[in-house]
Each structure stands twice: as C-alpha cells, then as structure tokens.
C-alpha cells in the first residue's frame, strides 16, 4: 500500500487544481453533487403557476355557483379550463418524449407525486373544459354545473400537489421546504384566482374574490417568511440572485395587488390592475422558487453542509 498514514492527512489538501474548499466544505473540483433538474423554463414554472390558478379558480367557481355569484362562476370556469389546458400543454411540451405523454397514466403510483398529479390533472382538465364549454355554449347547463362542482372539489389538490412534486427530490432548497411550500403555493393560487376574477368580472361582482385575494395573500406571505426563517443555509438560494429578486418582486406585487384591490374596488381599471399584479405575483413566485431550487442543486455546499451537520448531530462525523 502506498497510501500515506492518517496522521499525515490532518491538514486537508489545498492545491490549485485539487479539491476546492469553500467555507470549510470540501468538494470534487467544486462540481455539483446532484444533477440539476432538466425541467425546462418557462415550461415547468408555468405549469406550476397555471395549475394553481386553475385549481383555485375552479373552487371559486363552484362556491360561487352555490351562492349565486353568476359572474364569478363564469370567470372562474373559464380561468380554470384555460389554466388547466395550458398547464397540461406546458407539461407535455417539457417531456423528453412528448408523444409518450399518456405513459403518465400507465400506472398509478402513490410514491410518485407526478403520477398522483397526473391523475389529478387529467380528470380536472376534462371537468373544467366541460364546465367551461357549457358556460360558453349554453348547452347542457346541468352537466356543466356537475362537472364544475367536481372540478371545484379537485381544485384545492391542484393548488398544492405541485409543492410535493418539487419537495420530493434531493434538491436541498425544495426538499427542506416541504412543510411550508404547499401553503405558499396554495396562498399564491388563491390570489391568482382572485386576480383572474378582478380582471374578468365587473367591480360590483368581485367582493368575494377580493376577500379571497386578501386571505390568500396573507397565507402566502406568512408561509414564505416562515420558510425563509426556518431553512437556515438552504434558505439562502431563496434570497440570493435572480431567484431572490423574483421572490421579492412576488411579495411586492402581492402586497400591491391586495392594497389596490381594496382601495380601487369601485374602479374597473384599478381592479384590473390589481388583478394583473396578483397574477404576476403568482408567476414570479413559481419562477423564483424553481430557480432557487436549481441553484441549490448546483452548489455542492448546500448538499454537503446540511448532511455534515446531520452527521455531527449523530456524532458520526
């Protein structure tokens, strides 16, 4: 054996082309340990955003149906169907083999959030399309109501399963965020749907949507601040660079949308601007979270540091 002895190794090696060390973390030439997601931008962040918008819109439409808010039924059904179909489109476009999309429904696998998600998304898009079709054509209104009601029940799952989709990976900033991410996405989906309503309905009809936007914004902001406070080092990617900027923009737009939706509630134009702000906030949230995760996978520090801490905690390293 030509291997030097342990004592000789007490100083970690530091050569220009040897292992790179930053913050006491050793790595293989600074190369990533994980593969970063190959999911395409804008396909996948859009899929996350549109799915949330569609889910909350469907639920809004079905409660509006029960309470007789006709205009919100119309806007909700259209936003739900439009969002769902666009979301499916983005998902298919992202596949390496789009022609094999239907293999998603080949099995039902509870251990795969994408399988579970596909089994939510497929009936959801069918149901929302049927209810939107009935809305637009006036044909079979009862069937449309039924389809809309069923879609409304699936809606909340549409808003939050995408958080599990991201968290169920080795990507440090997504995985560690699993307790808050579904609340962040759920809150954001609520104000996205409120945004669609503010854009598409007359001010006299949007009162419930305004309340929904306010509550959703509260949920979103609370979840995101809790998440960043709790995460420690793997929370950094949510604060840095383009991801940090996107998420800051998302929060600013959320607050702007919320304020404007209240003070401008009698003006069609002001309401529409508030709605657009909400929708833009939802998109920024998904693009920001997506990017933060990719950045955390790229940097071996975010993989090694928490694992080293864990080992130290167990007294093993």
């Amino acid at each position: 054996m030509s291997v030097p002895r342990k004592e000789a190794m007490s100083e970690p090696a530091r050569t220009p082309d040897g292992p790179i060390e930053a913050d006491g973390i050793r790595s293989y030439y600074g190369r990533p340990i994980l593969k970063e997601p190959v999911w395409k931008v804008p396909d996948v962040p859009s899929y996350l955003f549109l799915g949330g918008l569609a889910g909350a819109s469907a639920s809004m439409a079905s409660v509006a149906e029960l309470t007789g808010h006709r205009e919100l039924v119309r806007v909700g059904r259209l936003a739900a169907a439009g969002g769902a179909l666009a979301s499916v489109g983005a998902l298919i476009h992202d596949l390496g083999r789009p022609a094999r999309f239907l293999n998603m429904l080949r099995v039902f696998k509870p251990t795969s959030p994408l399988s579970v998600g596909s089994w939510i998304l497929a009936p959801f898009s069918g149901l929302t399309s049927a209810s939107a079709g009935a809305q637009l054509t006036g044909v079979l209104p009862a069937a449309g109501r039924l389809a809309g009601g069923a879609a409304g029940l699936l809606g909340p799952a549409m808003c939050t399963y995408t958080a599990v989709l991201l968290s169920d990976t080795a990507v440090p900033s997504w995985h560690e965020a699993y307790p808050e991410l579904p609340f962040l996405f759920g809150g954001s989906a609520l104000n996205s749907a409120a945004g669609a309503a503010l854009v598409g309905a007359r001010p006299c009809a949007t009162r419930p949507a305004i309340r929904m936007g306010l509550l959703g914004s509260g949920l979103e902001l609370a979840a995101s601040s809790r998440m960043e406070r709790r995460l420690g080092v793997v929370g950094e990617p949510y604060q840095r660079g383009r991801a940090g900027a996107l998420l800051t923009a998302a929060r600013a737009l959320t607050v702007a949308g919320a304020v404007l939706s209240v003070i401008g509630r009698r003006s069609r134009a002001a309401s529409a601007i508030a709605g657009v702000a909400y929708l833009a906030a939802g998109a920024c949230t998904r693009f920001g979270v997506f990017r933060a995760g990719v950045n955390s996978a790229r940097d071996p520090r975010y993989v090694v540091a928490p694992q080293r801490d864990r080992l130290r905690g167990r007294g093993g390293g």
Partner: protein
Amino acid sequence: MSSVYRLSGLLADPAGEAGYRDDHPERVGFFTDTSVCIGCKACEVACKEWNLVPEQGLDLLGQSYDNTGALGADSWRHVAFIEQRVPDPSVTSSGTDLGMPGIGAPEQPAAAEEGSGMRWLMSSDVCKHCTHAACLDVCPTGSLFRTEFGTVVVQEDICNGCGYCIPACPYGVIGQREGDGRAWKCTLCYDRLGDGLEPACAKACPTDSIQFGDLDELRERADRRLAELHQDGVGEARLYGRDPDDGVGGDGAFFLLLDEPEVYGLPPDPVVTTRDLPAMWKHAAAAAASVAATVVLSFLGRRR
C-alpha cells in the same frame, strides 16, 4: 415479504419487496475498492462498449486526468482523480519510507514543512442501485423498476422523459440524454446478469478494484479488507454505502474510500427523498384544506 411498501429504513430483500417470488436470485452488487484503483478507465471503456453508450465528444476539463467529469446519461462509470499534496511520508515521524517512486526532486527539509509529497485518489463511481431508490419511487410511468437481482433499471421503451428521476437521485447519477430525451443510467449489465456473466466494468477491471458478486458476500469481503487496511495503518480507509441502516437503506454498489465522500463528489449522508413523502402529503393535504376553507370563507358575508 411484506405487503407494505417501505419508503426507508432496513430492508433485507428489495426484490422480494417489489413482488418477486421467494425463489428470485440473490441480490447482487458492486464493491469498488478504490485503494487499488489505478485510474486506467478500463471500466469506463468497457461499459460504453458493451452498453453502446454514445460518446460525448472530447472534453478537456483540466481536472487532473478526469475528462469525464461526472456520471450521467452517457457515462455510467466515472473515474474520479484527486491529486492531494501531503507531507512527504519519509520526513514525518510516523511514516515509513516504502521506497515508492515519488514525483519531483528529492525532498529538502526546508520545503518539507509545507508537505511536498503527494497522493492520488482514484475512484470508479457508478449508480448505487439503492435499496430505497428515489429515482424508482418518483418515476410516474413505471419505467424504472427493480429487477429480480435487486438492481434498479430504466425500461427505455416506456420512459417518456419527464425527468423526475434526475433531481430525485441523491447521488446525481441518472441523467437525460441529449437529443433523445429519455433518462439513462447503469443497468448493472442486466442483460449480462441474465446470462450468468459479470458486468462489463468488473470484468475489465485489471486490479479487481471493481468486484461484482452477491451483496451479502461483498459486504463481508469489504469488512475484511477494511480491517486489513486499518491494521496496516491506513486509518483513513472507510466504507461508503455499505450500511443497510443508512439513509437509502444501503447501496447495492458501495465503496471503500480513502478520504471523506465529498472529496470524491459523493454526498456524505444521502437520504432517499421519499422517506419524507408521507409528511409531505400531510402538509399538502392541510394546505389544500386551508385553500378550500378560504374559498368558502370568502363567500360568506356581504355580497358587495
């Protein structure tokens, strides 16, 4: 055999868990003893040849002799090269001059302070064929499956290129092939196993750094080798991925390393992401309930 699919923890028989009958073959794997790796890359070449893995063009990475870089869709074995400067063993009190050929001029006492000896670490990395394989768990199409040998294989005629397995793998092993769109990785030469042959890399390895066999036996062999090295004073030798109670339930392909795992580009304490999946769904269900309640709440109260 158990009827509950375990997401993490001890699991003696992953093939049985996947539904194979009790007469399925023994679980097989690799024990890669990096202390005898000479960095010849015969494994990389043999793997490419046997499995018809496409080339990636000529990359000069400037990272020692490593021009492969990492495992991926088109690299199912990857030999890592690490050059470490260490104090010359001949001038340290604890070392013995083994008469090994050195690099550079003979040591001068003044320079020895910094340490001017150097050592190579070479290690042939591969898919770990995890006991609890995240790639397999998250695959939505059932393309990734557990073989009767306990290994993890992609069925390329089913894969639709969703890419979920790629960020799910805690080791960064599996990748998407460019221009093809599907996910590819080591199959532990599933076709050869069926014919009673050992995998191409193990066959080609001239020093037996890559050892193939029944996993139980490999684990015993590795324990013996580790004890031997420790006895010889190689205190930094350690096994990686051997323990069935680690975060992935133990690796089907495990290693003997001479430094910390991260130095070789390996995660020091990987955990299968699906261990936390039940908790994730619980949080998502609570969040979905909050969304539903919020919508209902918003419609209570004044209409305008």
